[in-house]
């Protein structure tokens, strides 16, 4: 029988599951075996089931206005426990660093004074918000949620591609993907122990609560602020609100008076302590930012400054995940923590520096140009995949506005077997681990979102560009046993059997009754038939 991995050809990129000789990597061996035993027809059937289930449940992503089932590839991506430990440490290190950086640049500015990062790079960034200067968050946390994008280059080394410390999205799909995989491909999941992702909303809620102003007491009111149902990540906003058991509000549901934020409820106005906002800075508060914004809450920033509400993540975080700041993160790690970076950056050039610009222009055809102030994969020029005219335009832009771009060495992202039509083909992938900072502790969700570039050879994984995703498994070392918890002693509550109705046809009497009833029918039957025949 033809197997599903037959004809799978590993290319130049590092493949996450298959070695160049065609055998699976050690940590993927069990999964590979289980999948090899399934037929293509079965995979296709299950995939159809997966799409139906996503559509039924409304797990969709809107792509150019069209609602589609979230694209989950049936082949999971496995990260070994040892490698995960590295990623986790690297993510925590970056989040700690960027927290310190934000505290610094919205306060004393020592990092600038010490000459680690240029003054104009920070203060000229459109993502630096002077309006947030001097606001000190209650528990010191500005980055409540971070998504640090990690890729693997062709030599197998993990590198950070990008930091997202504003409102990284995708975590709801991590949970939904796991749920779908558990239900639709149970065989795969039972092939090996995998660390769970289910309790992410609890960690997030803990982090948001611990960020509340002190006066909110032990039960702060947390809300999720969404731009509304037309936002492409609306599913995620409602998912998180539902799973945290908090209200999902739109800007028009909030009102700010005397520097206090309230939500309008049927029982009157209710004070809000923490706003987990999924609205960008520019739209958050028309008093300070875009005054035409109709999706924000006028006055919320003043309320935050007065210490009456916590905005999570904080206003002005963008300066820390600015693509230019990214180039300085390794230095910032050494500066703030006195540590070497656990995860390296992708080699990056700054066109602002004239020497570097010349180097860039000479090698433009091999490099990647990224606009500094854009996300979602928009505006990226990948040298080897671009036409001469596109490169010429890029070169012109670089000369005219060097501050607006960074240029990186091309990383051939690692690949993983991905369902393409009816067979597996290598597709490029990245990884977005999510970290939640509660102040005392940075919790990294085991795994994160693996995004897949669905077109052959493409390196653009963003879902806004038609990318897919994979359930991401972090191999678990521990076996979860059903040990009694300390809270209560275990009790073997063995219940008596279920009540049963007097059995309608088992007792001797019932059989007798049934027989008599049947005899009646038998006796009557011929007469009936006869009657009809006449």
């Amino acid at each position, binding site marked *: 029988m033809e197997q599903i991995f037959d004809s799978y050809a590993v290319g130049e990129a590092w493949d996450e599951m298959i070695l160049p000789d065609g055998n699976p990597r050690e940590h993927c061996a069990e999964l590979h075996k289980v999948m090899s035993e399934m037929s293509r027809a079965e995979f296709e059937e299950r995939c159809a089931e997966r799409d139906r289930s996503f559509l039924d449940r409304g797990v969709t992503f809107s792509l150019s206005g069209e609602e589609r089932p979230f694209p989950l590839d049936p082949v999971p991506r496995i990260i070994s426990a040892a490698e995960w430990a590295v990623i986790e440490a690297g993510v925590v290190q970056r989040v700690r660093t960027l927290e310190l950086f934000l505290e610094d640049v919205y306060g004393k500015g020592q990092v600038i004074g010490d000459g680690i990062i240029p003054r104009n790079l920070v203060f000229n960034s459109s993502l630096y918000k002077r309006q947030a200067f001097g606001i000190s968050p209650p528990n010191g946390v500005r980055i409540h949620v971070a998504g640090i994008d990690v890729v693997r280059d062709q030599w197998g080394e993990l590198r950070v591609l990008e930091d997202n410390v504003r409102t990284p999205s995708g975590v709801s799909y991590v949970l939904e993907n796991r749920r779908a995989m558990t239900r639709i491909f149970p065989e795969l999941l039972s092939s090996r122990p995998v660390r769970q992702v289910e309790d992410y909303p609890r960690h997030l809620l803990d982090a948001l609560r611990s960020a509340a102003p002190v006066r909110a007491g032990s039960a702060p009111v947390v809300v999720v602020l969404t731009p509304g149902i037309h936002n492409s990540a609306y599913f995620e906003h409602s998912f998180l609100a539902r799973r945290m058991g908090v209200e999902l509000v739109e800007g028009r549901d909030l009102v700010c008076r005397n520097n206090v934020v309230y939500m309008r409820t049927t029982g009157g106005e209710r004070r809000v302590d923490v706003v987990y906002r999924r609205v960008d800075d520019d739209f958050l508060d028309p008093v300070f930012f875009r005054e035409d914004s109709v999706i924000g809450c006028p006055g919320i920033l003043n309320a935050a400054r007065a210490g009456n509400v916590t905005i999570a993540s904080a206003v002005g975080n963008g300066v820390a995940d600015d693509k230019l700041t990214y180039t300085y993160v390794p230095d910032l790690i050494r500066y703030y923590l006195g540590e070497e970076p656990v995860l390296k950056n992708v080699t990056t050039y700054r066109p602002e520096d004239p020497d570097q610009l010349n180097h860039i222009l000479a090698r433009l055809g091999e490099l990647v140009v990224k606009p500094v102030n854009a996300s979602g994969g928009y505006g990226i020029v990948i040298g080897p995949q671009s036409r001469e005219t596109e490169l010429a335009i890029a070169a012109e832009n670089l000369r005219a506005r060097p501050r607006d771009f960074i240029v990186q060495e091309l990383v051939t992202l690692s690949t993983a077997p991905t369902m393409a039509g009816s067979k597996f083909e290598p597709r490029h992938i990245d990884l977005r681990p999510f970290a939640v900072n509660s102040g005392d502790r940075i919790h990294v969700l085991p795994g994160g979102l693996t995004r897949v570039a669905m077109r052959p050879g493409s390196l653009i994984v963003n879902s806004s560009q038609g990318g897919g995703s994979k359930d991401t498994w972090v191999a678990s070392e521990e076996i979860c046993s059903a040990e009694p918890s300390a809270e209560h002693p275990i009790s*073997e509550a063995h219940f008596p059997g279920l009540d049963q109705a007097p059995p309608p046809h088992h007792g001797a009497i019932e059989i007798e009754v049934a027989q008599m009833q049947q005899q009646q029918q038998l006796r009557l039957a011929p007469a009936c038939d006869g009657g009809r025949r006449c």
Partner: protein
Amino acid sequence: MLSRIAESLFWMGRYLERADDTARILDVELHRFLEGPGLDQGPVIRGLLGALGVDEVAASRTSVYEVVGRLSFDAALPGSIISSVTYARENGRGIRESISSELWECVNVTYHSVGAISARADSMGPHDYFSFARMVRERAALASGIAETTMPRDEGWSFFTLGRSIERVDMTVRLIGLAEVVRGSRRDWMATLRSCSALEAYLRSYGGAVEGSKVLEFLLLDRLFPRSVHFSLSAAEAALAEIAPSAGRIGTTGEAQRAIGRAKAAIELREIGEILDSLPEILILIESACSSASTALARRFFRGAGLESWRHEDVRGKAHA
């Protein structure tokens, strides 16, 4: 109303609810088992069988899938989904003229669909059990909705809802017991809440923290959630009051009322801490109260419906003579 019809309505209500609840338990336990990192099979199996009151000597040697398969399709196993659906339909069949044809059809179609699925149970993978459980839950909800919109609110309706409520109490208590047995982490409580469709309602009222004591408080005592023990006991009480209104001024009239009242008092008037201290005893107490209520109802309202009792005495009498 004829005793026989009242009894059938009562049991149809119970079996439909039982099929629904069993499907919920299987779905959640299977999911939990799959998702847990290498969870031990033994406790899961013991928990399932213990909760459903199935004595199983060979439990340790079977797999979770096998147990789930039997609890779905083993027609000889009381409490399996197929036997609950079969009995619900048996009871409905005898009273077709007294229930709406839509309700009968719904129950009948469910019976045939479950039978058809059961015929190919051997080739079913674990993933098929999820769609099966979902189908059972949806069919039960459909039956419940049809009953709601087509049955006159007469005595028959009261017997039907009484059966459904008593069964819901019984099964919810077992489910809580199950969580007690296989509990290890916070996640087990989430599974328990899910199996009662209560996760979101719980999160909204308790705001996020899934803690054992709060979950128990919610599932036992919440006055607004329709699957909580308290809510279902109140529903049973209301149905009983319709069937047999108190005649006098003193106390409660019927034995069934007293049993339900005892169950309610066991949780309603206690601090949650006190309940937790003796949870297993309280769960068993509520369960046996349901059982006594059911027996009391049979004695008072259904006697003579099953020919069994008097014929037995009759036969024995003759033999002695």
